[in-house]
């Protein structure tokens, strides 16, 4: 296989990697907010359930979660995920959706904890200053607190995001055809290992882009310091 052929091949895999990355991020960021409201609510049944859920997800390996989602429906309920009507018999789509579901759950839990920390790190005085100026609770949250929270969580969220890019490699355990999967294929079909090392260039390149974006955001918010 020539360098060009391998590059084309890996790009095909990397497009799947990027899709998994993008959809996971888009879905888990807001879901994390929902989970955070769950873990901080005063309504205890919701609080206990969401906290248990977050604990289970954060306390088990992502690889194990992938296998649970992919195999349990077939093994326990005799209804293989790949045969669910919503996927219309499209196996790669079903595998991709299994991975996406697992990644979204996993990252939403991590994001919910980051949000919680970000909100708790805002000094009480900021709420009180808003209150004594006659603001309503929602005015205080949206006009005073929110941007400070965004600034506070930017660094941990960018960390998680970069971790997510690399974590997508785990999806190959359930045969999602991401970039590592293609590198393994090169080894199996053409007996060459170097495409595996070459994948690092793709990850590094994309993470360089993300780092650039996050650095700009961070600089934009750098005037917020308390």
């Amino acid at each position, binding site marked *: 296989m020539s360098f060009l052929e391998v590059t084309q091949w890996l790009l095909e895999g990397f497009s799947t990697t990027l899709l998994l990355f993008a959809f996971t991020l888009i879905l888990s960021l807001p879901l994390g907010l929902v989970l955070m409201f769950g873990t901080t609510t005063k309504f205890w049944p919701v609080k206990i359930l969401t906290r248990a859920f977050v604990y289970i997800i954060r306390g088990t390996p992502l690889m194990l979660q992938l296998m649970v989602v992919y195999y349990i429906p077939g093994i326990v309920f005799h209804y293989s995920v790949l045969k669910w009507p919503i996927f219309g018999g499209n196996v790669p789509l079903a595998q991709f959706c299994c991975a996406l579901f697992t990644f979204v759950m996993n990252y939403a839990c991590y994001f919910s904890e980051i949000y919680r920390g970000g909100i708790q790190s805002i000094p009480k005085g900021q709420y009180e200053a808003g209150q004594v100026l006659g603001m309503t609770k929602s005015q205080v949250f949206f006009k005073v607190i929110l941007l400070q929270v965004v600034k506070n969580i930017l660094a941990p969220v960018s960390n998680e995001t970069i971790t997510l890019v690399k974590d997508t490699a785990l999806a190959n355990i359930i045969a999602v055809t991401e970039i590592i999967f293609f590198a393994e294929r090169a080894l199996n079909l053409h007996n060459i*290992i170097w495409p595996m090392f070459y994948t690092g260039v793709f990850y590094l390149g994309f993470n360089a882009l993300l780092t650039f974006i996050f650095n700009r955001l961070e600089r934009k918010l750098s005037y917020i310091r308390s």
Partner: protein
Amino acid sequence: MKKLFAGLTLVMVAVMMFTGCAGGANTATGDEAGSDLATIKAAGQMVIGITEYDPMNYYDEDGTLIGFDTEYAQAVCEKLGVEAKFQVINWKTKEAELAAGNIDAIWNGLTVTEERKNDMDFTDPYLTNKQCIVINKDNASAYTSADKMTSAIITAESGSAGETAILADESLAKATFTPADSQKNALVALAAGNADAAVIDITLATASVGQGTYENLMIVEGIDLADEQYAIGFRVGSDLTAEVNKITDELIESGTMAKLAEKYELTDRFNEALQIAE
């Protein structure tokens, strides 16, 4: 607003907990497997779990999936009146794939072992196989037989027939064993010098050594470790096992199998399998 969120979260978590906690409630699949033949006929396809490797399931220059197992499976499926659908799986979790119903068969140079009989039913073997020792060409003069490798580092796929063969061999058992997560990675470890010898399928070894990353590797001639056989794996209790055995006999009768073996240079091993069957 917050209450709405709380409600939504509750529902979502409940669903997750239910699916999550139900694991282990019922892992028996045998009762369902009785209808496999009817099921695949109704679906019009048999989903066959494979990994891609030469000479069993690989691609020709036009990008068409070929190989001994590919064509064998297609011939059987044609007689069953269904389409052979090949699905790449993770070999490490093939038993779970089969049990979950993600695939209907494992048909990919699958070695018959006693342990695997708990997880699947095997058809009659169709090829023999051997485990062989692969080394770096630089060591060709040093490692000429198994008893010269007692102080070497030896690798094989964890849980594979190769590992069993190492443990069963008086000399190799004394060597330092390091597991690999696939046969291909055992060869990579060897090429990287992380191991001095690898024990893998002769099928895979013949198709790999001397090429690409494995350019500097060679098979140690004249050493045959454990003899074994390839068969197809179906779910425990599946009626497909008997049906595919019957069709295979027909294919042997008509000479189709012999032609296939010749095409992929497997004639000797096909004949050996036939002899064992008699």
